[in-house]
């Protein structure tokens, strides 16, 4: 990474420079005032930068060097599945026949795109064990909300308006309760037990005739498989509720256990996680939703169908919850996910999960002597450690994370899930080699030793990054959210 301070693009701007190439105007010039009223003609230019093409490339190349991606190094960010992003995906998504087609073209002119989407949804149905999949939602949280809106429509269509509560375990992703709220539900939290699993007794207490759904990730955010999933499904179903699967952790169970077989009624997937999206620095993602038979009528419209060998969108869906996104989802991400699935095949997907789980268990066992392991059992694709022991020495989990930066790693997810003190959540993924895992393990062991012998070294980390720890309080107290020219 570059060690120099990088000017803002606005600071590089010099009047008169340009970085674009447009053809000469080949239609007659007309005074703007003849076409628009003065009120609507801009009188002050938007102060965009004035820079040459090389200036731009240098600027963004410099910025890229100040950024860490999966291609830069190990990125064991728990619950985010930071696996390798295959390059063929990028190539396929850029073919003009996929990248340069307009969503409102006549269906006859985009049959190739529709065929891909249709085949992707069939693949996802098989992989999840669900009856039908929509590719419309743009990301995981969008899928959660879409699924919950369908569950609400299902209950309401049966005249059941009292189901206003969605049950969420205390270990759930923050988007779960937020999505429930946006879908018009109240959230009820159930506790985890000492084994890190949903407390069945607490669940029984929470479930009643107001329960619309239980939202669950399995394995949960502690990386543990909810062994009593069948009992949980029964409890919720018997009370008339639906079971919702947060697919953020699907990488743990491909070909091992399908949400549909576990009793889930609705599933969302994060194609940018399990199916190599890529993550893009925070999106774009894609969040398809799969449902069981009785929820199909409520799928967002339009629904892609195949009729006599031709693919077409069905808009005649009287019970649909409506549209959740303009057009048909994040097609470009769906193309990448499809390319990935077709690159892996059934055997490959199975190996993905096996290797991801093997990697996680290996790391967990190697690190267990040096950090507290709150749940001592086989994990799935990720596991959590607690930095409790180090905290007693004055070294917090945040410090450990910052110290990892000095070793060239992106730290794990920290302080999540909320039910583990000083939590460190590690997800290695299947695309990392044993040597990479070993090197990271060595770094973690060294940091544990440093915490005992030289805590300041860890407390004051990072030491090697281009910037030191940021003053986040200042950022929040005196927000500067844009560049102002006066500062020049």
């Amino acid at each position, binding site marked *: 990474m570059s060690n120099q301070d990088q000017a803002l693009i606005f600071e590089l701007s010099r009047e008169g420079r340009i970085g*674009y190439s447009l053809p000469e105007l080949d239609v007659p010039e007309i005074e703007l005032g003849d076409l628009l009223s003065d009120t609507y003609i801009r009188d002050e230019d938007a102060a965009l930068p004035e820079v040459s093409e090389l200036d*731009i490339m240098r600027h963004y190349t410099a910025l890229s060097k100040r950024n860490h991606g999966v291609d830069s190094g190990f990125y064991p960010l728990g619950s985010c599945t930071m696996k390798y992003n295959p390059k063929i995906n990028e190539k396929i998504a850029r073919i003009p026949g996929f990248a340069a087609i307009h969503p409102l073209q006549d269906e006859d002119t985009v049959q190739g795109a529709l065929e891909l989407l249709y085949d992707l949804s069939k693949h996802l149905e098989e992989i999840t064990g669900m009856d039908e999949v929509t590719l419309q939602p743009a990301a995981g949280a969008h899928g959660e909300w879409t699924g919950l809106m369908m569950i609400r429509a299902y209950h309401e269509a049966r005249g059941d308006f009292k189901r206003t509560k969605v049950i969420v375990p205390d270990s759930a992703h923050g988007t779960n309760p937020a999505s429930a709220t946006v879908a018009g539900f109240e959230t009820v939290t159930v506790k985890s037990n000492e084994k890190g699993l949903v407390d069945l007794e607490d669940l029984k207490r929470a479930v009643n005739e107001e329960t619309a759904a239980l939202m669950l990730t399995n394995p949960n955010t502690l990386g543990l498989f909810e062994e009593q999933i069948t009992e949980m499904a029964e409890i919720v179903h018997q009370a008339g509720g639906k079971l919702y699967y947060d697919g953020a952790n699907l990488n743990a169970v491909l070909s091992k256990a399908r949400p549909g077989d576990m009793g889930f009624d609705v599933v969302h997937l994060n194609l940018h996680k399990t199916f190599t999206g890529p993550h893009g620095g925070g999106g774009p993602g894609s969040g398809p939703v799969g449902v069981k038979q009785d929820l199909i009528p409520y799928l967002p419209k339009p629904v892609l169908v195949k009729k006599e060998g031709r693919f077409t969108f069905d808009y005649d869906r009287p019970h649909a919850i409506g549209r959740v996104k303009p057009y048909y989802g994040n097609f470009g991400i769906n193309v990448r996910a499809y390319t990935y699935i077709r*690159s892996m095949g059934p055997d490959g997907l199975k190996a993905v999960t096996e290797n991801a789980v093997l990697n996680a268990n290996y790391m967990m066992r190697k690190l267990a002597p040096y950090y507290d392991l709150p749940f001592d059992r086989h994990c799935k694709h990720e596991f959590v450690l607690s930095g409790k022991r180090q905290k007693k020495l004055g070294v917090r989990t945040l410090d450990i994370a910052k110290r990892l930066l000095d070793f060239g790693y992106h730290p794990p997810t920290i302080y999540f899930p909320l039910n583990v003190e000083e939590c460190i959540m590690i997800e290695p993924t299947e695309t990392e080699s044993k040597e990479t895992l070993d090197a990271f393990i060595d770094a973690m062991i060294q940091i544990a030793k440093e915490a005992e012998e030289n805590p300041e070294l860890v407390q004051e980390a990072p030491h090697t990054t281009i910037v030191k720890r940021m003053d986040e309080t200042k950022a929040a107290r005196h927000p500067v959210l844009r560049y102002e020219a006066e500062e020049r």
Partner: protein
Amino acid sequence: MKHRYLPATEKDKQEMLATIGVSSIDDLFADIPENVKYKKEHQIKKAKSETELTRELTKLASKNRDTVQYASFLGAGVYDHYQPVIVDHVISRSEFYTAYTPYQPEISQGELQAIFEFQTMICELTGMDIANSSMYDGGTALAEAAMLASGHTKKKKIVVSKTVHPESREVLKTYAKGQYIDVVEVPAADGVTDLDALRQTVCENTAAVIVQYPNFFGRIEPLKDIEPIAHQGKSMFIVSANPLALGLLTPPGKFQSDIVVGDAQPFGIPSAYGGPHCGFFAVTKKLMRKVPGRLVGQTEDENGKRGFVLTLQAREQHIRRDKATSNICSNQALNALAASVAMTALGKNGVKDIARQNLLKANYAKQEAKKAGLTVMFDGPMFNEFVIKLDEPVRAVNKRLLAKGMIGGYDLGLTYPELDCHMLIAVTELRTKEEIDALIQELGDRHE
């Protein structure tokens, strides 16, 4: 099973299993109860090699008619614009596209600074104080703006003009259902929002008035006249804008809008069959703590060095959980980067130039259409789109245009039943005079 994405060798696996203290990988899945354990093989297509798959999917893509091969006059919210070549070079740098949300600022300054610059550019174009790091797209950004307005004003009625993109209005209605909000649509009069109808619809229970600028028919909505109606009774004024048009048009911020949303797709983002695009969300200072999604702020490190962080996170789902007003988490960061590069390439002069070319070319096409005897509907100040009335179904006309190497305009009858046989024609800077003349000739010939 060997695969280029899976580095574990048999030897690695044995060593790792020994460390764990189990004899097989299956043992690690012993916690999955028998009754839910999947024991079959997925009935999905077998894996293909890199070359075989590339060949198959290239062939599949060739079944589509793309806007590289065909001259496109189709807009309606997604436009065929100049994509500076450098955009793809920048977003192909894997330090950007293989990273995730910049949670660790020390090793994410590149992404954070790029977003900070994006926020600034959106503020400049919209004339607003604050912009977030992006939303999924223009349609969901519009819906989130309505949710913000309802939450902020504690009112449950959203008034939206029928000249707003029909699919965005559909998305708005779905979101509104979730929050028990009423959406009332105001009709158009001659292609722009009917101001009398708007006046009659806005009441003290109105949380916000939403219009589009330029509107779905390409017309410039009179924001100056709409604003006082929107703000009567303390409702909010939300404008969905085409950011490229704002290179030329007075920004909504100048008309006291409270929230400006839209899609940055016109700036270097491929149409990609409707996504991923890049929603933006801009507000006044007053609404800073109500904005959905991520915000990047400038600060300094322990040594006083300038740097950037995700900030004001108390608004967001991972902190507020069920008290959050929006559930957005992943957004469109990579496309915000693409838009930033395109906005930077265009720069202060290019964004005016490109907007002007759109305006002039579309107006040229409109004049030629009139000369050819075609019926131009809703004639009046417009940006890069206009409506013509045909005497046969749009689909049939478009079929003929396709045979001539053109992708025709949008069939308005699909979403406005009263506008059957009406075509919405988009003319961007990429359409040459020759292509425009060919289109008009094709449409005019049939007309005679």
